[in-house]
């Protein structure tokens, strides 16, 4: 068997006695779309924070391609190929949509070009292509702060994709988006992910979205993995139905 792209081994962390990660073991294989579901406060976002270096586990290891990345700084982990989109989009709100993306492109290619314009050297072109890929090209000149929530989510995700990551972590990509828009957003997103050939892990509340798009589902409960498998199997599990789907 090949090395998993990302592997978490026995991750543990607690806040004020609450165990947000209580021995998490998880593998993500190259090319899959893995969904994490579970009740609020079960430690899903904490897991993303642990994988990206925002939090340091009290014990356990995270491996990328079999090499430990535990407790590295977020920027180091980002450079190694894990990008992240946030539950609350993290944008440069007072810059244009295009600038937001050009900064991301520049971050990937190297920002140490002190006297070249941000849009020079093909950065503008690359950013515009990415925007077109998710249909944000018409809003390119708008300030990011003026976008509606759904478009912000999309911009946040495409910023992550601009890093050409090997793995992208999406924290509730459809939260704050209306049910009607939800599937449009997911279709655009999946198209972009496939085209960029990125492995993705997403935390999601909407069971319909999970059922339709995930290759594999991991069910979270009280800081550890309670069940995992393909959606068709997991959603037949009595415990899952009672504890997670029923609640959500």
């Amino acid at each position, binding site marked *: 068997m090949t090395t998993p792209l990302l592997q978490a081994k026995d991750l543990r962390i607690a806040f004020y006695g609450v165990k947000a990660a209580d021995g998490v073991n998880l593998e993500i294989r190259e090319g899959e779309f893995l969904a994490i579901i579970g009740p609020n406060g079960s430690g899903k*976002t904490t897991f993303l*924070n642990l994988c990206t270096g*925002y939090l340091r586990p009290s014990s356990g290891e995270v491996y990328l391609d079999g090499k430990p990345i535990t407790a590295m700084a977020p920027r180091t982990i980002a450079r190694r190929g894990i990008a992240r989109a946030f*539950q*609350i989009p*993290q944008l440069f709100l007072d810059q244009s949509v295009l600038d937001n993306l050009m900064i991301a492109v520049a971050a990937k290619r190297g920002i140490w070009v002190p006297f070249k314009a941000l849009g020079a050297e093909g950065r503008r072109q690359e950013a515009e292509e990415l925007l077109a890929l998710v249909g944000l090209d018409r809003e390119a000149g708008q300030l990011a702060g003026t976008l509606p929530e759904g478009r912000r989510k999309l911009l946040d995700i495409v910023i992550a994709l601009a890093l050409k990551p090997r793995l992208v972590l999406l924290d509730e990509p459809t939260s704050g988006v209306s049910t009607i828009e939800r599937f449009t957003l997911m279709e655009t997103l999946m198209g972009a992910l496939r085209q960029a050939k990125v492995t993705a892990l997403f935390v999601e509340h909407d069971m319909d979205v999970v059922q339709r798009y995930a290759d594999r589902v991991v069910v979270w409960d009280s800081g550890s993995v309670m069940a995992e498998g393909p959606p068709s199997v997991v959603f037949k599990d009595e415990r899952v139905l009672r504890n997670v789907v029923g609640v959500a």
Partner: protein
Amino acid sequence: MLDTLIPLAVDGLASAALIFFVAVGLTLVFSVLRVLNVAHGSFYSIGAYVAASVGLWIAGAGLNPWLSFPALILSAAIVAALFGPLVERCLMRWTYGKSEAIQILVTFGLFLILEDLQRIVFGVSSLAEDTPMQLLGSTRIGGVIYLNYQLLLIALAALVVIGLRVLLTKTRIGRLVTAVVADREMAQSIGINTNRVFILSFSLGVFLAALGGALATPTAGAAPGLGAETMVLAFAVAAIGGLGQIEGAALAAIIVGLARVLAIYFAPELDAVAPYIVMLVVLLIRPYGLFGQAATRRI
């Protein structure tokens, strides 16, 4: 060595007590209003000028010299009543929730205004009035002479620490203030009149700064430029203690006072630098001060 150091320490602590009054006001205002008031030091110098003027008037009018003690406190109260509500309502409240850069600039503008006002009203000469110090005399302990007034200053500072703590924990208004500090939005939503809390807290801060200035007149008098100097010292003390921390400011004032004493004893030219060096060292080790805590951010 101790024979020299102990009187020096009393000296250092007495001057630290004066800075403490200013710093604790600054810290109190910061924790309630969440604004660092760069003009805070000006209330110290205005307090000093008002107290010196009142003191000189009492002496000139031939009144009972013991009146000069309540006059010091009354002077601070006058300054607080005059400036507290006015500045808070007309200026400070427009800066709530704005970026630190805006807050610092607006209060720097206030500083410039107050400096000129003070110069226009009181002129550019310094005033001295030391009746209270003369009245109290001195005590001789173990062959060393201590000014009673300095001992009084240290005692008053201790009293202010205790008084503020009691005020904040035992009184109704104090608990309202504490609630606003803990969670402004929540306090508003449960019907606390936050405006009143802001006015009162700011005025109390002004009073404490002016009190520091008033109490300084018997030993140091009032002079132009005092506001700017006091401001940075109070900053340093508040930052060392941790912004918003009353006991922190007290401990910081003691540390700074003693650091200056050591500086005067071992390297006199470093006297003025000592507080800032202490501040740099403390903030490099504990960025949020001795008693301060970092704000956490959710993502």
